[in-house]
């Protein structure tokens, strides 16, 4: 798992690469939290290179989504791979997240 970010005052774009699973979700969450600023109005998660995600990863996404909602911001998921999109669909997350 590797993440890169692009920070502007209006939005933060975070690109996620590789796998997010039980072994590294904690690390992922930490990394995201480090990048995030509660005042940022929009956060975009670019999932183009996200190959795999397990429930642990989904939980991180969810808590991130909650955090953004609480601060009046917006979380946007982008370029999900079909297998990942399937997981989002199955888990019902597709209806929660803004997926573009």
């Amino acid at each position, binding site marked *: 798992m590797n993440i890169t970010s692009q920070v502007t005052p209006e939005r933060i774009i975070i690109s996620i690469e590789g796998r997010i*699973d*039980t*072994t590294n979700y904690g690390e992922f969450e930490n990394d995201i939290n480090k990048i995030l600023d509660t005042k940022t109005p929009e956060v975009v998660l670019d999932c183009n290179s996200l*190959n*795999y*995600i*397990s*429930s*642990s990863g*989904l*939980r991180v996404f*969810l*808590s991130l*989504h*909650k955090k953004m*909602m*609480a601060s009046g911001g917006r979380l946007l998921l982008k370029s999900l791979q079909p*297998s990942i999109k399937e*997981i989002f669909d*199955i*888990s*019902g*997350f597709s*209806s*929660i*997240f803004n997926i573009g």
Partner: protein
Amino acid sequence: MIREKLSYRIISRLLPAILLLGAAIVTAYYLFARSSIAEHTAANAQMTAKNSVHSIEKIVKQAELIPANLAWMMESGSLERDSLYHFLKKLVENNPLIYASAIAFKPDKNRRLFSPYAYRNDSIVESINLGSETYNYLIMDWYQIPAMLKKPYWTEPYYDEGGANALLSTYSHPFYLIKNGNREFAGIITIDISLEWLTQTVSSVKILESGYALLISGNGVYVTHPDRNNIMNHTIFTRAKEMEIPKLREIGRSMIRGESGFDTIELPQIGKALLYYEPITSTGWSLGVIYPYKEMYASLQKLNLVIVILSAIALALLIIFISTIVGRMLRPLTKFAKSARVVAEGNFSAELPQITSKDEMRELRDSFEFMQRELTVYISNLRETTTAKEKIESELRIAKEIQMGMIPHIFPPFPQIKQIDLYAMLESAKEVGGDLYDFFLLDERNLCFAIGDVSGKGIPASLFMAVTRTLLRSLADRDKTTATILSEINSTLCLNNDSNMFVTFFIGILDTTTGDLRYCNAGHNPPVLIKSGAKAEYFEITKGIPLGLFDDFTFNEQFTKLNGGDQIFLYTDGLTEAENSSNELFSENRLIDSINISESRLPESLVKDVLRSVKLHVADNEQSDDLTMLSILYKRSDEDNSKGKEAEKSITVQSDIAQLQRINNWTEERLSRLGLPEELGNTVNLVIEEAFSNIVFYAYEPGDSEKIDLSLDCEGNMLVIELRDRGRAFDPTAKKDPDTTIPAEEREIGGLGIFLIKKLTDSVEYARIDGVNVLTIRKVVK
């Protein structure tokens, strides 16, 4: 060679002083001799002049007696006037000295001028009366001057006009007659004296080469002189003016005053000369003798030349003498120089020159001897020290042997295990080193291997290494994860590690039957993985931190799978950091390159090839760090393949989330072996992960390391996933599905895993059989 001999230098310093001294002596001698000669010459001159004057005076006095006697005779009346002619004739005839004689009477009433006169005419003596109208003798010097002065008078010399140019002088003597009882001046008696004898006397005075005697008259007229032109023509005063020598005039004045004395005078032709003059008192004339200086001192000049030549010879001899003596005195120095060279070559008993004198040479010899003795003592001390050092070194060698004995070095180590070919080597930079490697079997199929590098070098490092190795041997266990082993070693090392030493460490446990490799790294260099038929590349591993630093550090085990022909190459940084003389490191790139260019894939050859490359790189530079390599080739034989397949249906993992990667790898391989599509991988992975993590989190307490068996197989078109664990009874299927329709902010975090499993598979069954939780998941596959 010696560019400037000491003796030459001494001579060159001495020479000016000697020359100065010599010059002073010669000058002093010269001045003394000169003054002595001057004195001698002066005495000689005086004597010569006095002698001449004396002989002249003798004759003059003799001559003077004649007129004096005549005068007495006249006065006494013993001569008659008439007989005077005859008398005078006889007088002249009988006195060869007398040229003529006259008795000139003072005129009286009877006779005006009367002067009987006898003179030589050739050989005959004739007589006449001089007095006549035309010859008024009364006003002539020879008469007038003595008559007026009433005393005898020598006239100035004159040439006789009648005779053969004879040089004459007239001596006039007044005579008196008694008239009327009174003694009255009556006339003058004269004799004319030829001065030939005088000029001969004076001319015969020979003085050196060009010196001479001269005679001047009362008026300063030259009567005799080597230059005939001067005689009777010049006075000493006209010569003085002509030659422009004012001093000569002064001398002349002294001479005609009747004085005697010395003087020096510069004359043309003659040069500087000594002049002595002495008066001929009776005539008022003066005799001078002239000594030319250059002739006076001619002998001295000659002597001087001889002295200078002798001095030059003496000087040359002196130089030879000094250089010989100094050379002889300094000869020992050359020998000392030779001895010093011999000593420098190590022969302290080099022979020294014998010095019998008690001078500085002796001192030098004593110092030299002292130096030799001290050197001998020093060298013997040095030998003892060296022996002691050698003893320590030998002990260190033994220590090294012991250290080396601690690590396995018999190859091949496990001939019974055909899947493994292994080679290792450790080359210490010092006698004992801080590197270590180790490998041993945990059971019949699991090989534990490790490599480490202790901070620092030498004995402390080697001891730390020994401790680490011992801990490894005692703590390694088949059932522990590599991370656990490292944590335990770490904790033990951290205890009482006052010296703050640490060790980078890499541990791996290879299942020789499956090729599964579990490993954990503690700050060690990443090993090289050489996949069969591929280029070598570095392991992607977690770096971790070295052992012995923080006892609570959590190490993570990693997993990979070796296929047949794969090789893992471990090394210490002594390899990559080996420096050549230009301070270039061997570097990780060179390591990879040297592995890749190695033709052989056999560990022993590979290790030796790499070692050669390193040595080539380092060249002459000293080895600064231990070189340690360990290479393991995994070569699964064909007969083991079936057993391996069988074994692959299931895998036993520790109840540790870190095992997930190993599980993923296994799953992917398993699916491909079962011929299932790759797209299925992610789904199956997700299912197994969710199930496994549920068991790890819920069936066990955190930190428990229990085994979980996982199997994956196909039953018809059904993929069966089975997980068995011995943890608490836990039924994940019992968990209520989360409501996926509610908004995100209301959703619980958790419970999603089992929900996903259910959604992605076709059945999930839980059973508790004999204390074992068995979760069977089935999914229809095409």
